[in-house]
Each structure stands twice: as C-alpha cells, then as structure tokens.
C-alpha cells in the first residue's frame, strides 16, 4: 500500500500528536502531585510571601534593572559609536571593552567591582543600589553596544548619503536620521537584553543584602531557609514572569505600530 505525500505528512503529524499525548499522560502518572504541591506550592506559605515580595523584593529587582538598563543603554550607545568611528584608538578601546566585559561572567565582574575597587582605591560604595547596579550597567553596555552597532549597520547606506547631501553634518545625520531608524530595528533584541537583565539582577545578592535591599531571588532563597520549603522560590519565579510578560507584550505592540507607520 503506497501513501501519497500528503497522506504521509498527515500520518507523521498524527504520530507526533499521539506521542505528545502519551508523554503528557506519562508525566501526569509519574509525577507525585501531592508530594510536589506539598514541597513547592504550599498555600499557607504562598500567602505569607505577600505583600513583601511585591512591595520590597520586586521593587528592588526593578530598581536594579532600571538603573542597569539606563546606564547600559547610554554607555552602550557611546561604545557602539566608538566602534564605528574612523578614529582607530576609539575602535580599539570599544572592541577591548566589549570583549572583556562580555567574556567575564557577571558574577565575577560583580565581585571584582564590588570588592576589588574598594580594596584597590580605599573608596567605598555609597550604597547597595549603586554597588549592584553599576557593574550590571557596565556589563549590559557591552552587550547593548553590539546590538546597537548591528542596528546602525542595518540602516541602508543611502540614508546617510542622502542626509549628508542635504547638508547635514555626520553627527547630525547620525543623531536625527540613522540612530532613530536603528532603534526601530533593534527593539526586539533590546527587549531581550532587558529581560535578561531582570534575571541577572538575581546575582547582585552575592555582594550582600540588607533587610531593605533584598531582590526577588534572594527573597525567595531566604524564604526557603525560613520555611524549610521550596514554595517561596517558586513564587519568586512566578513574580519574575509577571514582571517580564507585560514588558514583552508592550514591545510586541510597539513593533506592530512601527510596522504600520513604515507602510
């Protein structure tokens, strides 16, 4: 019995559906749900996480992310322009900065900047927010610089040529014509960067946390110690999700709008 191409494709699809159903059924069977909910979804403990997890922990996570991102964006833009510059030392500096900060794990950068700088200079960080957000911004800048550079390079050459032929200076053309278009192109990868940054803030607690500066992940970990149960960590994970979802939806909306304008 020979099957037509279409029949074969259908057969394969049914097979995939069936396999998925079987896998789901197995999952439901294998998982000990009462044990799982006892260890990770204890209602009594979930209730105790609120409202502090939102008013304190999520607030701190957002503060770290916000300053990390703003700093990273500003510095990243400068680095991207340096990388594209005609001046060779600028290009060298930007390339070295990006390679080094991108290649070293954030955890190590945090420790080096958070403790190494005070040891080397005798200067101490004014507070936890600066101590945590500054290294985050410096590392984010390295990634964002590459994203922005790619965006600027993706703007058609003719745009710059047209702007220059209208009598604009190079920097004027860059600022008013090229960079705005580049940002439209890099909106999706930039969102990605922001979301990654939200989660990277969970590493800042390695520098030590006081009662008032605990971020979401540390709040969850402390809860695990306090209740001897994993529920607080699961709740913290869900709050991260709640923080990122509206953001990604907003960007999707902005992208749709940008597409309409272009047409």
């Amino acid at each position, binding site marked *: 019995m020979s099957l037509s191409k279409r029949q074969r494709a259908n057969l394969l699809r049914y097979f995939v559906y069936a396999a998925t159903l079987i896998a789901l059924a197995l999952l439901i069977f294998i998982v000990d749900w009462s044990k799982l909910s006892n260890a990770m979804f204890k209602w009594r403990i979930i209730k105790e996480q609120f409202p502090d997890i939102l008013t304190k922990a999520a607030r701190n996570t957002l503060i770290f992310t916000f300053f990390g991102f703003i700093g990273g964006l500003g510095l990243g833009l400068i680095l991207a322009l340096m990388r594209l510059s005609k001046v060779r030392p600028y290009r060298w500096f930007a390339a070295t900065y990006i390679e080094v900060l991108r290649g070293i794990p954030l955890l190590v950068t945090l420790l080096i900047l958070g403790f190494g*700088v005070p040891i080397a200079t005798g200067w101490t960080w004014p507070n936890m927010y600066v101590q945590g957000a500054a290294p985050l911004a410096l590392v984010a800048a390295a990634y964002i610089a590459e994203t922005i550079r790619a965006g600027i390079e993706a703007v058609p050459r003719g745009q710059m040529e047209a702007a220059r032929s209208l009598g604009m200076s190079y920097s004027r053309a860059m600022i008013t014509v090229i960079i705005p278009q580049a940002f439209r192109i890099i909106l999706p990868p930039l969102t990605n960067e922001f979301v990654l940054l939200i989660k990277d803030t969970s590493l800042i607690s*390695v520098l030590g946390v006081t009662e008032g500066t605990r971020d979401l992940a540390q709040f969850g970990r402390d809860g695990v110690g306090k209740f001897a149960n994993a529920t607080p960590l699961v709740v913290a994970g869900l709050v991260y999700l709640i923080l990122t979802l509206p953001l990604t939806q907003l960007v999707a909306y902005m992208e749709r709008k940008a597409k309409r304008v272009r047409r």
Partner: protein
Amino acid sequence: MKRFRTVAATFAAVALVLSACSDDSESSPDAEFTTISDGKLTVCTDSPYEPFEWQDDDGNWTGFDIDLLTAVADEMGGLTLEVIDQPFEGIWLAPAAKKCDIVGSAMTITEERQEAALFSDPYFNADQSLLVSADQAETLVDAASLAGKTIAVQSNTTGETYANENFTDSTIKSFADATALFLALESGQVDAALQDLPVNADRAMKNTDLAISATFTTGEQYGFAVAKDNTALIEAVNAGLAAAKSSGDYAEIYKKYFGVDPE
C-alpha cells in the same frame, strides 16, 4: 503455559536475590541501613567553608567535616566518602530529596531544622565570634560599639539569627557565601563579620590584617543530618562517631584543623 513458566522463573530469581540480600544483612548487624549508591556514603556540603570543608589546590576534598565523615564512613563497614557541593540554604532537606545520604556542612542543630531532618549526636561545639580589621580589634567588641555600623553575616545561619537578636542597632548585611562575606570585610564594605568561631579563627590565621575581637558562647553544637525517617542510618552514623572518638581519630582530626585538643 510457556509464558507462565517464564513469570514463575522470574519470581523465583527475584526471591533468590531478595533472600541473598537479607542473608547478607543478617550476617553483619551494621548493614541494615542503605545508602543511595552502594559502598559509598554520599555527603552534601556547602563548600568552601574553611576549615570545615573546601577543595585543596589539587581538587581533593578536605576539612574537619570531610575528614571526620571519612573516618565515620570507614567505621560503618568500610564505606568511602562521596562529596556533593550544595548551597547551604535548605541543605538539610537534601537527604530527603535523595540527593545525598547525609549532610555534613558545619551545621548547627536547631529545633527548626530538627523538624525537617534527623540529626546525629553533636560532634562540635561552635561559638559565635566577631572578626574585624586588626586595628579595630580593641574598639569593635560588642553591640554598643557596633551601633550604627554594618555587620556581615551568612544567610540562613545561626550567626544571622544571633546578629538580628543581639545587634539590633547595627545594619545586618547577609551574604550567600563566606567568600563574599570576607571580601566585604577586607574591602571595608562592612565593619565586622559575625560568624562561627572556627571559621573566623581560620581567616584571622591566614590574614593577619584581621583579628577576632570578641567571642560569644551560644551553646551551639554541630550535627550531621539525614532524612527524617532514616533512623537506621543515623544509628550507624552515631556508632561510627563514637568509634572515631574512642579510637583517637576524632582528636587527631580536631588538632589538625583547630590547632588544639578537643574540649
């Protein structure tokens, strides 16, 4: 019919194996407990936490807990020690999750933890102590002199609880691991570290810029922990511990890491 015979043969084989097993355990009274991997005692520990557990330059596990557990495992019918590195938060739940057989991580026996795990006889008396920069060893000695200053503690340790209860006028900064805690002290980000005496003593020995300015007797004792229902294993561990003490192994290990004879 043939099929039935296969089943019967399987049953017979299984019965044979089972009886072989039970014969084995009857012959030696200590072998009633089981470990997650045969011939090995798997221990969960939060490394590095010198002088209790860390890896030396060649990656070998070393420290007071490790050496003592090696001796105890040997007393338990010649078991060898297998070490798993695990963050301290909630580490006492690891045996119940079948991650390891036992926790040996300089862990104080508390009522709270006893609700979630089964502890061995105490094997170490731990007092709390203050570690400060050597030039302040005379001044930063108690809660009054540390008012308005910052004290570093390790998250979810009894040191953290002690600091929160007794140093109410100081800012308490929690660190997930001891490495960052000491770096914070050495870099001047915090004024003192409140930590178990042996750990602080070890640090002060290695770094003469630091000194212990005060010790506090707390009645704290360290114990090993196994899963809440694993009485067979804890009995074997206690027997091994007693044997190590009477054979002089315990005193020898104690002297090796703390430089003095046990009390």
